């Protein structure tokens, strides 16, 4: 389907590539181009420009917990290419400009970007990022759990590759093709869960997603339409395995007088998926006083899943007629489909010059249909004891709609006021919270009315203030912690104290309450930030950027524990202070030999439910030896600790990097 659509779009691209200009115009333009090229030749720019930085990093021993260090920072020793940005300006028709930039090569988070273009013919952009995701932090759970350490860990490598080719045959029709691949693989630890116990086993993780999409942007004088169609392929092949005898999290606590253990266990997943993706976008300005916007996005992801589990040991089950068994095998087949449509339509009307009226309708619909079949066999004393078969079907449907009307009025050049109203409504059909595989479903409703207001003030040229607020009275909501009765307030201000000193102020506040009996949800969050930017003489020799942010989160909600039956309050507090400063100084020197010194860093301290400190000071000295060669040296320190709670996760390390920057 997708290939056929792309194939249908290709002739369109070829037609579009036909230059609509008459022959005389073409000749005249060709002459003009020749003249321009001739004129440009004498003062042609440098063909190559940019820089390449290479160097070596030395890191001190990590004092404290290495696994926490790797989970948060993960920088190592060795040869590195911290940054590279090289541009090429050519005269060739096929390659007029090229830019290759890359960062952090050799480190766990590296990126590159290649752009090739000719403004008359094409533009190609390729982006690559590679991130090592290492997470060995047990403290997200309860570290006192038996065997609770290291039960959910990841040591994976996630990569993204994007290719985007836009053909520019003329200004009106722009075909494009996009290919993207996202994949991740690595190892980790995952608990294998069987009834009555959990066994942390080694796992292999391996999944990918690949998109291919082609589209055509049709650009008219007062309107534009983009049509895109493509497909996605997805695969996930995880496996979990162990051949060592394990007692699992239950340890030496027996079940009905018998100790449980696992001597051999494997789980193998094979998930395959695909999706069609379609986008239709349009904008129009049919008259000076009206703008129209619209988009329809459609995806239809489907997956099929095969799962095989083989277990051996002293195992327990609640299956009828069985309590303990020696080995078992589960085979599962599942199929899921989820058509997903999102759309929005909006218009801005300008009936008089100072008034703008915006109306937007948004809709989002998801419908998931799934089926599955499971066959479980139990072997007891080398005899097949039971075979259980079950099949099930599941459904999840949700829709969300929003209608917004807002008016913006300019009171002269200095003040703009806006006010409006948004209504959000939707419904959802989900499976009820029940142990039964074929349990009931629940129908939920969402109804929310929201008032909108805002102000932008520029009382004088040095000061800009903007504020926005929304207040909601939710009649119906899905979950206990969802937005119910809430308000949001945002204030931003910028003030030019002096021509070389700029101050930025940000204040955000949000409160959300759900007073329903048994819920009593009370959430408050606010942050305020003050930033200063000092650049005397336009920043030629000194630039200082400094920010301080204070943020607080306070959440109270009642919850229920069935065993032992009790009600409790979940209290979460987070009071954070964050300070950042960065100074760039050009030191005295002769000619080009002016060293540059940068230093600063950030410090975060949080109090409340998880008190922690994290600091990252750094400094860098760069010395130009020659117009094309600079040497640099960079120092960084990373420190982290969590007083009172997870003190064993503390770490601190220093690192030094020295290298050469080649300037083209």
């Amino acid at each position, binding site marked *: 389907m997708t290939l056929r659509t792309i194939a249908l779009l290709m002739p369109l691209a070829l037609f579009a590539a036909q230059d609509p200009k008459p022959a005389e115009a073409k000749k005249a333009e060709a002459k003009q181009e020749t003249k321009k090229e001739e004129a440009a030749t004498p003062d042609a720019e440098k063909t190559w420009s940019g820089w390449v930085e290479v160097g070596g990093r030395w890191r001190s021993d990590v004092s404290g917990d290495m696994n926490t260090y790797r989970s948060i920072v993960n920088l190592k020793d060795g040869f590195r290419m911290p940054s590279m940005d090289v541009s090429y300006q050519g005269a060739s028709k096929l390659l007029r400009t090229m830019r290759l930039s890359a960062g952090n090569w050799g480190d766990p988070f590296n990126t590159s970007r290649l752009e090739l273009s000719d403004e008359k013919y094409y533009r190609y952009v390729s982006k690559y990022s590679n991130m090592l995701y290492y997470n060995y932090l047990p403290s997200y759970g309860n570290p006192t759990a038996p065997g609770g350490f290291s039960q959910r860990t990841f040591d994976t490598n996630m990569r993204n590759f994007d290719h985007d080719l836009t053909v520019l045959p003329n200004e009106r029709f722009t075909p494009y093709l996009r290919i993207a691949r996202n994949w991740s693989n690595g190892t980790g630890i995952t608990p294998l869960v069987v009834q009555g116990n959990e066994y942390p086993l080694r796992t292999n993780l391996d999944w990918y997603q690949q998109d291919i999409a082609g589209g055509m942007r049709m650009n008219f004088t007062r309107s534009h339409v983009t049509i895109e169609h493509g497909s996605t392929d997805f695969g996930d092949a995880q496996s979990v395995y162990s051949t060592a005898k394990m007692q699992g999290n239950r340890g030496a606590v027996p079940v009905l007088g018998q100790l449980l253990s696992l001597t051999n266990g494997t789980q193998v997943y094979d998930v395959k998926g695909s999706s069609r993706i379609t986008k239709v976008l349009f904008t129009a300005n049919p008259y000076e006083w009206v703008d129209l916007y619209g988009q329809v996005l459609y995806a239809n992801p489907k997956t099929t899943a095969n799962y095989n589990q083989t277990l051996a040991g002293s195992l327990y089950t609640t299956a009828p007629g069985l309590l303990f068994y020696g080995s078992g095998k589960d085979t599962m087949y599942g199929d899921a489909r989820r058509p997903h449509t999102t759309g929005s339509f909006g218009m801005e009307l300008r009936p008089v010059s100072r008034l703008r009226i915006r109306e937007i309708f948004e809709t989002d619909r998801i419908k*998931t249909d799934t089926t599955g079949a499971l066959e479980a066999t139990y072997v007891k004393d080398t005899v097949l004891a039971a075979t259980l078969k079950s099949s099930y079907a599941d459904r999840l449907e949700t829709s969300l709609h929003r209608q917004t009307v807002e008016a913006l009025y300019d009171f002269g050049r200095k003040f703009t006021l806006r006010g409006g109203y948004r209504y959000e409504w939707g419904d959802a059909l989900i499976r009820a919270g029940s142990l039964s595989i074929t349990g009931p479903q629940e129908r939920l409703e969402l109804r929310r009315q929201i008032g909108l207001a805002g102000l932008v003030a520029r009382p004088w040229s040095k000061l800009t203030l903007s504020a926005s607020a929304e207040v909601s009275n939710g009649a119906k909501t899905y979950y206990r912690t969802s937005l119910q009765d809430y308000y949001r307030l945002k204030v931003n201000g910028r003030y030019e104290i002096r021509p070389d000193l700029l101050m930025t102020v940000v204040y955000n506040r949000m409160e959300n309450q759900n007073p329903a009996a048994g819920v009593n949800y009370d959430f408050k969050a606010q942050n305020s930030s003050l930033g200063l930017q000092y650049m005397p003489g336009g920043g030629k020799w000194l630039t200082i950027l400094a920010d301080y942010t204070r*943020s607080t989160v306070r959440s109270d909600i009642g919850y229920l524990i069935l065993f032992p039956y009790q009600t409790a309050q979940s209290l979460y507090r987070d009071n954070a202070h*964050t300070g950042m400063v960065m100074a760039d100084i050009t030191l005295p020197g002769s000619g080009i030999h002016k060293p540059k010194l940068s230093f600063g860093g950030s410090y975060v301290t949080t109090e409340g439910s998880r008190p922690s400190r994290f600091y990252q000071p750094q400094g860098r000295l760069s010395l130009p030896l020659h117009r094309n060669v600079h040497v640099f040296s960079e120092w960084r320190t990373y420190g982290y600790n969590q007083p009172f709670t997870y003190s064993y996760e503390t770490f601190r390390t220093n690192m030094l990097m020295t290298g050469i920057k080649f300037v083209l």
Partner: protein
Amino acid sequence: MIRLSRSTALLPLAVFFLPAWLSAQETTALPKGYVGSESCAGCHDEVSTAFEKNPHHNLSKTKWRGLQERACEACHGPGAKHAETNSADDILNPSKMQPAAVDKMCLSCHRNSKTQVGVIQNGHARSAVACTSCHTVHKTGQASSDFQFRTAMGVTKKCASCHTNVWASFQKPHRHRVPEGAMACTNCHNPHGSVLARNIRTANAAEPGCVACHADKRGPFVFEHAPVRTESCSTCHEPHGSANPRMLTRASVANQCLECHSNLVSPTAAGIAGGVPPAIHDMRLPRYRNCTTCHQKIHGSNVHRGLLR
């Protein structure tokens, strides 16, 4: 064999002739009040020379907009009076215009772009943050926003200059790798506006942008965890940065889960979902207080309804 209806067969012909017809509508004569870019260059030689390296210089090569002789006046308005008086009051200066007027001017061309389709939903536009707040027009080379925005750190620096509170969140220990330059704000947000709240990008057409990198969370799963579809990822995660591992919004997993899973009857009389965990979970035992040790497929499972495997 593919059968085409008459209207379908005529479509390629219409597409073929459309560009030719549109070209016929083009005019190049200077309208009244305009003087043309060459006149501008007479006084503003330095700006004019630099402008030749600017992407907007394409206007002088684009015939169908009819701006090829007056690329400067496309943004600065008719310049005849200014040319006579040399007064700054007689020419438009976008840096001194109201943000809405700047946006209108830029969008008169750039509205016709797929990235601008969500501009009407954009918080920047509603808060009068004009296009020129982020994008430079006359600067060239490495000083231009066009050059700087091609790297992740270039984008991030620009966003952080206003969103200082968000940048502060990224200084927390558990965050996406934005400070390291591995990602930019624009990996997740479209600053020009999006169909999703908070300018979140979409991926694979209609899916939330998170799944562009976290494809394993996309599904569909045979057994979905409903809030993953009905709410946003930020219900449980603070993507900008958190003091809690996995960027969770709560310090312990038990509280994260139990705050929702606490209704004796689901849905409640008020229609709120989230059943209480069954009595087999003795929450006094540490073994049960880390829910995701067992419910490891918390984003959705293809095997087990309880999201166990």
